[in-house]
């Protein structure tokens, strides 16, 4: 069976890129009660890191 970490890693890396890009391009898009934090940027970084970690695990197993 193929490794689920590959598609899952790709998905979260993609999600992280979208959120980071959105957070950087539109830093003024803020929520009412979290106006002092760039929520998109930080959660994008967290998701991207998680996605890359899954990809690294999948890659390490393959090689």
């Amino acid at each position: 069976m193929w490794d689920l970490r590959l598609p899952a890693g790709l998905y979260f890396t993609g999600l992280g890129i979208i959120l980071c890009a959105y957070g950087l391009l539109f830093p003024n898009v803020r929520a009412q009660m979290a106006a002092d934090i760039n929520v998109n940027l930080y959660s994008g970084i967290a998701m991207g890191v998680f996605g890359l970690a899954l990809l690294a695990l999948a890659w390490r197993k393959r090689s």
Partner: protein
Amino acid sequence: MTLATVDYLVLALYFAFVIGIGWLLKKKVSTSSDFLTSGRSLPVWITSLAFIATNLGAQEVIGMCGSGAKYGIMQMHFYWLGAIPAMLFVGLFMMPFYYGSRARSVPEYLKLRFDEKTRTFNAVSFAVMTIFSSGVSMHVLGKLFQLVLGWNYLRSVLLAAAIVLVYTTLGGLTSAIYNEVLQFFLIVLGFAPLSILAVMKAGGWSGIQQNLAPKWTHAWQYMGNAADNPMGSDMFSVVVGLGFVLSFGYWCTNFLVVQRAMAADSMSSARRTPIIAAFPKMFMPLIVILPGIAALALAKMHSGYALPMLDGKLDADMVMISLMGKFYPAGLLGVGITALMASFMSGMAGNVTAFNTVWTYDIYQSHIRKGAPDSHYLMVGRISTLVGTLLSVGAAWVAHFYKNIMDLLQLVFGVVNAPLFATFLLGMFWLRATGLGAFAGLVSGTAAGLLTLALTMAEDKGGWIANLHTFRSTMAQNFWIAMVSFAVCFVVTVLLSIVGKAKPLSELKGLVWGATERPRTAAGEPWHKRPVPLALVALGICIAINIWLW
């Protein structure tokens, strides 16, 4: 609340991935066993995460957050007192029989251990229950999206159902399980920021404690008297009703979750599936219940957040989405909505894949058409996936018209699961238990539970025949119904088994404690590959959390 283009992009990316996974797995399915039981081939980390995810339906996520705001920290007992001990128990003591008996489903185990009628009773009640629970979950989601996002109720329900149908019909149980793992990650990553932001805004845990009366933030201290705590339940009914009967009934006998462990690649993996799952499970309340408690504190603090109300009462189902509206900007809001969609899909796929297995093996193959070639059952499996989905849509449609049907169903689920646990307990650990005893116990236990519901009331519900007692909350009523039906089933099964004739020992091999070789782990395995030490570590952490939040 309106979604921006970026939010739709996030949602579309998710849909593309779930369907893609189903498509990739299509090639792997060539027999009915591949389709309905994953050919018992999945690695343990995947089955463990699927084990939790399949229970994390939309109703669960939305409901737990709302209950956090309604009952405070005591709601966390559903996890720490309820799910965790039950999951450790099923892994250590019951999985050897489920997995070792080579049964393909929970009802099939009942057939091997007892007889055909007990199996059929369980198969039919389970099939009806799965259809209704996925229907109700679908209804909750459709209503929420209609109310908050202005989406068309029918169209969003049909879209979500169609996507689940596509990936489960293509790749069967494996596809459902693989997607559940993806959904689990998404649920955690999509809801965790909400918990973090809401708690930070409320001044951390200490800020929450300062703003709320102590009964909301102490898990055990106010349980001595039902009148002192928000749940309206005393220690006995919480520990016995929730902790023992309801939770063990759900986690140990519900094929929906047990099926995930039965798909594992070895006995050791099957036993460790619920045990490994217990580790992330005990921290799930931080993501699903804590935001509800934080919402309560935020509302008290005049922070600009107000709890959603309906007719003067807390509208529990709206708590989570109202928090999202305040804390999530466009972008992450799309992720939050996608996570809700994912939780709905994992719950629904769980129900549908359990339904098609029980229907194909326990009803169709054993009553309608025996001895057909395997390709026939594979086709039946695929068709019943479609039929199951259509029936769920029908159930959602029914729930749409009768508002109270949902509360009622919650209570009925308790009536179905609770006596079943008595049947399994006696079936797996008592050689004398007979088929007639089990069947009569199940029927009378279920009837006794329904009768209790008909004779008592709580929050103006129940009491169709007469009202002999009024409970402080539907939760308390639920606990007592479960205890009554469990006790009746237990007593009736024991009495009829004593007067009846037990099966010979040779027929019980692999099915009952005392007639089965204990599964052994190979010498020299590290602790995390051995079920018992792993379970002890999980139990230790869980007890520590309870003491900390006493």
